[in-house]
C-alpha cells in the first residue's frame, strides 16, 4: 500500500458512505415492489388513490383474485408447461452434449457448427412457420403444441441448441481419466454417460434447468398466439387477460401481480448462487 492519503476518512467510518449509497440505490430498485404489495391491500374505493399506504388493509383481495379469474389454473399451467420444457430440454441437451464432448465420431464437428449457427438465428424468423406447422397438425391451443417448439426452438427463451452448447462446455471440463477408467472396467458408453458424466455435470444441469424454467415461466409471445382457451392460458397471458378485463380493479390486479412475482423472488433466493455462476459459464465463452 502507498502512504495513506490525508483526505482518507478515519478507519472507523471508512466505507460507511459507500454502504449508505448502496442502501439508497437498493431501496430505489425495490420501491416498485413495495408499492405493488401496498396497492394490493387497498379497498376498491381506494384503488384510484395515489397514496402509498392503504387506510385499511384488505387481505381478502388475494382470495378475490381466485374468484375473479382462474388464477390457480394459470399458475398450474405455467408450472406444468415450464416444467415439461425444462425436463425435455435438459435431458436431450445432456445426451447431445455428451456426444459432442465425450465421443469421437465422423461428422461430429460439422454438426456442432450447425448447432452454433442456429444460436445466432433471430427467433422471430421461426415464429410464423412454427405456428403454421402447429396449425397444420391441429396442435394450436394444445399443451403439446406449446411445449415441443419451445424445447427445440428459440422462441424468445433458451432452447436445445443453447442447452447443448452450455452443457458441452461444462462436460469438457470433466477430466478424461474418469471415462477411461470406467471404460477399462468394461462400462458401456451409456453407463459412462449415466453413472459418471451426468452426476458430475449436476451444477451445469441445474443452471440450464433454472434458465429454461424461468424463461418459460415468463414466456409471453409464443403462449399468447398459441393458446385460445382462457383456462389453458399460462400466467403471463392470463395476467394480460386480467388487465384487459378488470384493469380498473388495480387492487386485485396488484394482488395477482404480487402472487406472480413472489414465487420468482423465492426461487431466486434459493438458487441465487447457482444462477450467478451459471451466467458466467454460459456467456463468457459465447
Amino acid at each position, binding site marked *: 500500500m502507498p502512504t495513506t492519503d490525508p483526505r482518507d476518512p478515519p478507519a472507523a467510518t471508512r466505507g460507511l458512505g459507500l454502504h*449508505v449509497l448502496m442502501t439508497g440505490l437498493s431501496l430505489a430498485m425495490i420501491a416498485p415492489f413495495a408499492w405493488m404489495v401496498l396497492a394490493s391491500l387497498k379497498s376498491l374505493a381506494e384503488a384510484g388513490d395515489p397514496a402509498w399506504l392503504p387506510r385499511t388493509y384488505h387481505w381478502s383481495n388475494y382470495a378475490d383474485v381466485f374468484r375473479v379469474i382462474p388464477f390457480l389454473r394459470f399458475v398450474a399451467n405455467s408450472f406444468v408447461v415450464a416444467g415439461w420444457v425444462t425436463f425435455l430440454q435438459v435431458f436431450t441437451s445432456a445426451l*447431445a452434449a455428451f456426444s459432442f464432448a465425450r*465421443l469421437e465420431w465422423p461428422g461430429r464437428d460439422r454438426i456442432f457448427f450447425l448447432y452454433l449457427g442456429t444460436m*445466432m438465428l433471430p427467433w422471430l424468423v421461426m415464429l*410464423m412457420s412454427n405456428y403454421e406447422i402447429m396449425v397444420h397438425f391441429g396442435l394450436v391451443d394444445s399443451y403439446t403444441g406449446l411445449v*415441443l417448439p419451445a424445447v*427445440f426452438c428459440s422462441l424468445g427463451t433458451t432452447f436445445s441448441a443453447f442447452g447443448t452448447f452450455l452443457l458441452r462446455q461444462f462436460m469438457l471440463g470433466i477430466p478424461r481419466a474418469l471415462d477411461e477408467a470406467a471404460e477399462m472396467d468394461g462400462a458401456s458408453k451409456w453407463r459412462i454417460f449415466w453413472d459418471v458424466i451426468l452426476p458430475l455435470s449436476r451444477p451445469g444441469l441445474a443452471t440450464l434447468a433454472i434458465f429454461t424454467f424461468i424463461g418459460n415461466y415468463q414466456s409471453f409471445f409464443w403462449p399468447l398466439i398459441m393458446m385460445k382457451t382462457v383456462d389453458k392460458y399460462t400466467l403471463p397471458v392470463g395476467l394480460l387477460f386480467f388487465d384487459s378485463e378488470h384493469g380498473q380493479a388495480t387492487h386485485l390486479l396488484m394482488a395477482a401481480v404480487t402472487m406472480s412475482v413472489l414465487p420468482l423472488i423465492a426461487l431466486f433466493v434459493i438458487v441465487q448462487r447457482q444462477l450467478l455462476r451459471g451466467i458466467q459459464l454460459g456467456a463468457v465463452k*459465447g
Partner: protein
Amino acid sequence: MSARSSRRRWLVGMGFLLPNFIGLCAFTLVPLALSFGMAFTDWDILRHNVFRHEALHFVGFENFTRLFGDPQFWRDLGNTFFLMLGLPFGIAGSLGAALLLTRVGRRRCAVGPALGVATVIFVASGLVLLRGGMPGGGLCLLFGTFAASVLAAGVLSNGTVYRTLFYLPSFTSGVATFVLWKNLYNPHSGPINLALARLGFDPPNWLGDYEWAKPALMIMALWAAIGSNNMILYLAALGNVSPELYEAADIDGASPGQRFWNITWPQLAPTTFFIVVTGVIAGLQGGFEMARPMTGGGPAGSTTTLSYFIFTEGFETGRLAYASAVAWFLFVLVFILSLLNFRLLKRHADD
C-alpha cells in the same frame, strides 16, 4: 475393420445426439426453410387455413418491395432503434453497479458505526411517524425500517445483499412487472406522478403521451437492465483484472479517472463487446413483450416496434408471408452484426 469401427462410433455418437437433433430439425431447421419460402409467397391466414385451401402463389420479391414502401415499417424500424438508445444507459448502469459492488466487497466496513447509523435511521423514521402521524409517517417508518435492515444486512454480508436486490428487477422482469409499471406510470393513481407533482413538476401523461411513451418504456427497461446478467458479467470480469495492474498505477500516482480509463475499461473490453452485441441483437427483436401489456403499441403507433409489427401482421391481420418478410429483414441485420462480431472477436484474439 477400421471402417466398421468408424461406422460403429458414428452410430453411437449419433444415437446420443438423435433426440435433440430430430427436435432441432423439426422445430428450428424446417421452420427456418419454411419461413424463407413463405416470405416469397402470398400466404395469408384468411385464405390458407384449416377450412380453406387456396393455391399458394409465388410472388418473388413483392413482399419485400411492399415492405420498403410501407411507411408503417419505417416508423416501426425507427421506434425499434429509438428504444435501443436505452442500451448504452443500461450498460453504463450495469458497469457502475458492478464497480460499486466490487468496491463494497473489497473494503471492509466497520460494523459498529454502520449498525449505529442503521439504528439512527430506524429511530428517526419512527419519530417522524410519532410527530407527523399517518399516512406520511407510516410510509416513512416503512422505508426507514427497510433502509435500516438493508444497511445492516449489507454491512454484515459484505455487500452481497445489494447484489441480490439489484438483480431482482431483472430476474422478475416479465408481463407481471410490466403490468406493475403500467400502474406506476398511471397519471392519476400512480406514485411516479404523485412524487413529481409534490416536487413541483408538471408531470407528463407517460404511456398516454405520444412523446413520452417511448422514454417511459426505456426508463422501465433501464430499471430491469442495471442489475441484469450484464452486471453479473461485469462483476466477474472485474474480479479477473489483475491487482498488479492497479498496484503499478498506484505507484505511478494515477488518478481514479486514469485508473479507470487506462486499466479497467480496456480490461473489460471483451465483456463490453459481448454485452453490446447480444444487447443489439435482442433489442432489434424486442419491444413487443413490453409494449403489448403497457401501451398496446400506442399511442398512435409510437411504441410499435418491428416485433410488434410482426405480431400485428402475422397474427392479427393474418398476413403471415408479409410478417415473414419483416422477420427476414431482421435476419439480415442480425447476420451482419454476427459477422462483425466474429471479425472483431477474432481480431481481439489475435492481439
